[in-house]
């Protein structure tokens, strides 16, 4: 029977060409939207490795020389912030922190250890502020800073990517030519660039007291239930301590929303484009089928006269359309599957192929749904009446 459908489609190829091309384009658009959507969802569903709730961040440039007074001011500011009744934890870091959009990267192959990872300088309280869960070992403390090797914490992603078969805890390597480090802890995750980003391998490196220029962000975790009035208190404290107002203070929740909107907006736009196309193709299919059936009523009458059951007539129309969709799908897929091999996709390959599968399923279900009503109409046609229609 499929051969019979195919013969009719082939003979009517001129009439089917526009629909066929339209289906190919719809497949491509749906593949793209689904792949991107699946990829973004997978990023979103993967663990962040920190808790952004109740965290305020002050971005500041102390603009002073590294003097004892500056160090004291930095230290006392942290102390004062921590002394606030609303405060839970306070930490200094560089401007590489969740949702900031800044990245620092380092790679080094000294000692034969090859890595290429993101990193940040952060003080010993950073893991407590951001509630970073540890997979093994621990986050560094102030006491660790006196050891021969600089203690660092890496993420599990770092271990998975660069340390296959190696025990991470106690592993020593040159982070830079001058800095020899020892891994003392493995954090579960640290997807600091945003909810919709891929997690990169990451290192936490201690922030030295004398590196005053690297004290670029103050991360303040307030106690749960703290109201927005705390923002003014933090602002006043920082302003009084630094004697300038050249800083920004924001609740991380706001930065997070803003960062995520950069994904939501194009995703929503693509989604609406796909919906529009799908509605378009649905209406097109519905209209074409109704037209085809109206045009083919004598043929339906003949088929019923020579023994076609109502199911056979219904299958005739759904079958023809599904064969056409399968052909369009094959053409669309032939081009689509080659894409990962000829260019670098901005999404993971498996998400791309899952997108193709999910998109194809949607189109097949949609086409089948659109053919049901007109096909049923054809199936219910009375043969005697149909045979006398011209």
């Amino acid at each position, binding site marked *: *029977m499929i*051969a*019979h459908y195919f*013969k*009719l489609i082939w*003979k*009517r190829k001129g009439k089917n060409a526009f629909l066929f091309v339209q289906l190919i384009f719809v497949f491509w658009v749906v593949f793209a939207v689904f792949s991107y959507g699946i990829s973004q969802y997978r990023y979103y569903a993967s663990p962040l490795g920190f808790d952004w709730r109740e965290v305020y961040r002050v971005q500041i440039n102390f603009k002073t020389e590294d003097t004892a007074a500056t160090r004291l001011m930095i230290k006392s500011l942290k102390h004062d912030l921590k002394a606030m009744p609303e405060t839970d934890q306070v930490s200094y870091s560089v401007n590489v922190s969740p949702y900031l959009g800044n990245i620092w990267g380092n790679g080094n192959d000294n000692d034969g250890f090859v890595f290429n990872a993101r990193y940040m300088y952060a003080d010993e309280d950073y893991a407590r502020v951001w509630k970073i869960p540890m997979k093994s070992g621990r986050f560094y403390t102030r006491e660790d800073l006196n050891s021969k090797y600089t203690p660092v914490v890496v993420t599990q992603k770092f271990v998975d990517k660069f340390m296959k078969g190696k025990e991470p805890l106690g592993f020593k390597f040159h982070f830079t030519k001058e800095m020899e480090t020892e891994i003392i802890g493995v954090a579960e995750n640290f997807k600091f660039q945003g909810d919709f980003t891929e997690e990169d391998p990451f290192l936490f490196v201690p922030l030295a007291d004398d590196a005053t220029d690297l004290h670029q962000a103050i991360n303040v975790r307030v106690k749960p239930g703290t109201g927005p009035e705390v923002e003014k208190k933090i602002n006043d404290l920082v302003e009084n301590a630094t004697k300038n107002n050249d800083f920004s203070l924001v609740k991380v929740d706001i930065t997070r929303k803003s960062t995520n909107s950069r994904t939501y907006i194009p995703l929503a736009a693509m989604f609406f484009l796909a919906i529009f196309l799908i509605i378009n193709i649905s209406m097109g299919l519905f209209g074409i089928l109704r037209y085809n059936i109206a045009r083919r009523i*004598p*043929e339906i*009458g*003949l*088929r*019923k*006269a*020579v*023994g*076609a*059951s*109502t*199911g*056979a007539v219904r299958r005739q129309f759904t079958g023809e359309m599904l064969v056409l969709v399968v052909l369009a799908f094959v053409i669309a897929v032939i081009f689509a599957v080659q894409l990962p091999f000829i260019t670098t996709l901005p999404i993971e390959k498996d998400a791309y192929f899952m997108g193709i599968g999910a998109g194809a399923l949607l189109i097949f279900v949609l086409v089948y749904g659109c053919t049901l009503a007109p096909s049923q109409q054809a199936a219910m046609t*009375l*043969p*005697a*009446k149909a*045979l*006398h229609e*011209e």
Partner: protein
Amino acid sequence: MIELKNLSKSYYTDVLETVALNDISLKIGKGEFVSIMGPSGCGKSTLLNMIGLLDSPTRGHVSIKGVNLENQKENDLAKFRNENLGFIFQSFHLISDLSVIDNVELPLLYRGESAKERKRLSEEALEKVGLLNRKNHYPNQLSGGQRQRVAIARAIVGKPAVVMADEPTGNLDSVLGNEVMQLLLDLNEQEKVTVVMVTHDESMARKTHRVIRLYDGSLVN
């Protein structure tokens, strides 16, 4: 072979009942060639549709080959038509996008025959109507007479007991009409197929075993 008892057919609108057939009772024997005649609108085609199970009567019974076809489900009727009845229409009703052989094998497709068997039987039917050499042509490449011969091949490909022909020569000139009529006569004589033919043409009707005349939906003695 075919028995109609008190068969009536009416068509209804909101305000009007139109009687197309009125209390028709008749028998058609096995191997008989019967023609149905009458003026336009007298119910000839309606009667043929009733015998051919393409439409259902308002009242009365139809039985074919001893099978009472009253209250049968539509799919059962379709199966019965497929196995026992062949149809020939005035306007041929060939599917223009299918080749001659694909048109002929259509009833076998719904019978579930294998592709090989369909091909064999279709070629055999086309051989009988003298169009085997045109099996890969399309209907628009054939003359009117050839198209009707393809329709006859389609009607007989499933070896039906009864062939219903609705004005089979109506769209043909006299020469081609005679050719088609001869094919039907041969089919009836050689293969003992019962043929029921609606016609306007007295000369064609005279060639059949019996003429049934209709007037205003009733049989005329």
